[in-house]
């Protein structure tokens, strides 16, 4: 057991640190009082990603032939740690480089790889993930966006939701139903969607916070050529699973990835003598800290396993559950300690923002219930719930549901 770098890792860390030291003055300021004007943020961030990519600090785990370094996860973590240490932003397109690029590497055609991966890595073309729909969240395979085949291509109609970055993306990876007459997991296909195609409309979706953290994307008879299919027609679910596996790795990093650190909450109350001396405040803070520290070391365990070539299982979702719930408890604690003043929305503290934002995060990336189901069944080997949708053609299933809801 060793948390320290091997000599090779230490050397690599030194190299990354040196590059960042030299270039950090070129990094854009995205937050705080010196932040760039909002309308310059995306372009500045994009330019910074290009520099990181040129230095080999973006997509380090991608194979060399597609512009990566062919590194393992530890080196990627070293990059992330050093970026955090230098207090500069990471890349702009974490969804593309972290999840969608790897999906194209695994399932895309050679033409797709050579066309899309380079611009993605360099931030020239940002990507978004178009999976979720209003009626397909927890039950992701219940996708209703239809793709009808026609000569040499497809026509897509439907609606996607919870799409991060759609407002400035060049492309999206979209999951659509190409066959409604087979059971629901079987009739799906994955496509590349140019976001500027005719019939694509992006609309910001305001959250409880008042900000549009996500988008809705509407598709009205959007034409796609055959060469936009990723993987095989009808195998969209299998392709999506690859994306979700990479998402899982990210989720496994829980509070670390989400930036909810215990100090942040402690600092908020440390100035109030009565709070610091209150037994209830201290117990709650101690509990929250314990949970968030545990997530940190769970992520090290996962990283260690990744490094040994193991694929993380669904238990990675536990870190997301822990992080979200502990962070919710922390916001609650701070508001109890500071009173209504903790809920002011016109400051930099972001506590009020997180108070509003976190309840929605409970449902993102799989609700807690779905995660617990999956872990119970796949990891603990518990029997599944009876499934009423198994083997039933999708079109029939919808009709049944409508009927049941009407009762």
């Amino acid at each position, binding site marked *: *057991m*060793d*948390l320290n770098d091997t000599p090779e890792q230490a050397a690599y860390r030194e190299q990354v640190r040196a590059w960042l030291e030299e270039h950090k003055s070129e990094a854009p300021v995205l937050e705080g009082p010196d932040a760039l004007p909002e309308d310059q943020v995306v372009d500045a961030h994009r330019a910074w990603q290009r520099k990181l990519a040129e230095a080999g600090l973006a997509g380090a785990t991608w194979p060399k032939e597609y512009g990566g370094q062919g590194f393992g*996860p530890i080196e*990627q973590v070293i990059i*992330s*740690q050093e970026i*955090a240490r230098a207090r500069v932003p990471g890349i702009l397109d*974490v*969804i593309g480089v*972290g*999840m969608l690029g790897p999906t194209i590497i695994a399932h895309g055609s050679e033409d797709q790889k050579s066309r899309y991966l380079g611009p993605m890595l360099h931030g020239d073309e940002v990507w978004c*993930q178009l*999976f979720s729909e209003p009626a397909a969240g927890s039950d992701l395979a219940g996708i209703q966006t239809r793709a009808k085949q026609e000569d040499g291509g497809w026509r897509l109609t439907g609606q996607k*939701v*919870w799409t*991060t*970055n759609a407002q400035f993306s060049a492309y999206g990876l979209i999951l659509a139903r190409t066959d409604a007459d087979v059971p629901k997991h079987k009739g799906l296909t994955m496509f590349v969607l140019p976001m500027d195609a005719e019939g694509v409309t992006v609309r910001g979706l305001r959250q409880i916070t008042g900000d549009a953290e996500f988008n809705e994307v509407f598709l009205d008879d959007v034409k796609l050529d055959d060469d936009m299919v990723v993987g095989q027609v009808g195998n969209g679910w299998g392709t999506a699973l690859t994306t979700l596996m990479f*998402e899982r*790795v*990210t*989720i*496994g*990093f829980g509070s*670390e*990835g*989400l*930036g909810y650190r*215990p*100090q942040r909450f402690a600092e908020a109350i440390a100035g109030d003598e009565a709070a*610091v001396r209150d037994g209830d*405040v*201290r*117990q709650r*803070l*101690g*509990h929250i*800290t*314990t949970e968030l*520290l*545990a*997530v*940190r*070391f*769970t*992520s*090290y*365990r996962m990283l*260690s396993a990744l490094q040994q070539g193991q694929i993380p299982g669904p*238990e990675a979702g*536990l870190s997301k559950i822990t992080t979200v719930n502990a962070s919710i408890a922390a916001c609650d604690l701070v508001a109890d300690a500071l009173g209504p003043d903790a809920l002011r929305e016109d400051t930099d503290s972001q506590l009020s923002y997180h108070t509003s934002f976190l309840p929605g*995060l409970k449902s*993102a990336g799989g609700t807690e219930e779905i995660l*617990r189901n999956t*872990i*119970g069944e796949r990891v*603990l080997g*518990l*029997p599944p*719930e009876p499934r009423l949708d198994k083997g039933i053609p999708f079109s029939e299933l919808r009709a049944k549901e409508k009927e049941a809801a009407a009762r």
Partner: protein
Amino acid sequence: MNLELSDEQQFLRDAARDALSRTKTIEAARETLDGGARPDLWPTAVEAGWAGLLVSDENGGAGLGAFDAMLVMQEAGRRLAGIELLGHLPASALLDTGGYAGIEAVAAGERRAAFVGAVPPGDLDPEWTVDSVSGMSRAPAPTFDGSTVTGEVAWVVDAPGADVLVVVAVQDGSPVAVVVEDASVEDVFRYDPTRRLGHVRLEGAAATPLQADVAAIERAWYLAQALLAAESVGAVEACLEMAVAYAKERFTFGRAIGSYQAVKHGLVEIMRRGENAKSLLYYAGWAHASGPEEFAIAASACRSAASDALDYAARENIAVHGGIGATWEHDAPLFFRRAQLSRRLLGGTGASIDRVAGELLAGSAPGPVAPEGPTGAAATAVEG
């Protein structure tokens, strides 16, 4: 970075599991509760070499680390083995570095030691304190006058029958660790038949000081916390196995109960808490070896997570079993008893949680620089 167990650690763990499986420890616990004799597992510990686990090679020990000791405690916890290592190991570590003449006999297990520790000062309380017989109000640590020690420490784990007590006392406001070989120990039984507890009463008892600075004395206290945590993690794993097995074989309304979300999610919650505690064992093990300034928060977090996980697991295990899980003949109640008493030992779980908060508020930055995940950002986790 590598958190895999080494080959030696895997061997140590497997050997412990094997050695402890030779005694029917759980059945013995039930019989003890019914008035039977408590099985003596110390010979097993001696034979396996655990008595000298934390004693250096030159003093006749194995010279292993805290994390190795935790692996053994985890196996003991899994089987509710009432082995006296929780008292012995922190004591042996102080005796080893403190220049104790009889250290080789301690390392060999010929003489069993027990740690009569004290809670170090915190951000709010400047005193060294010990558990009192009843209540949250804490007692002052015993006092040492250069040759004798006076004071009372309640609920000392593994004190009855120990040959050597390592007592944390205060001399002129500073802590000292002293050796007492002739103390009055009242054997007390509370609720958990696997646990030997004693009220230690020292009235001018002859005592020899050890060479141990404040850091070493604090370290021994947190080591005890980490060992208790490891023991609890083992018990959590046992509860989880038991409950999962039953959830697969018990049927209601035509379905195995493990297929119901209420049961399934509860079992996953045992796992979540158990895995969190287990991750913190790594933290404590790492901090003991390489991050001493974080050992207080690491061991306290670890102890609180493990105690809470065991409380939850023991209750959930009973609940999953339904009525049968609360009967005398079932193993679940024995784990429940273990959980309830353990929570209140060594200062109590609440004090550990408080210590985590206190360390954080006092500004001890916990944890090495943390990875931000391979893709390094929050937004990915929120993508539907």
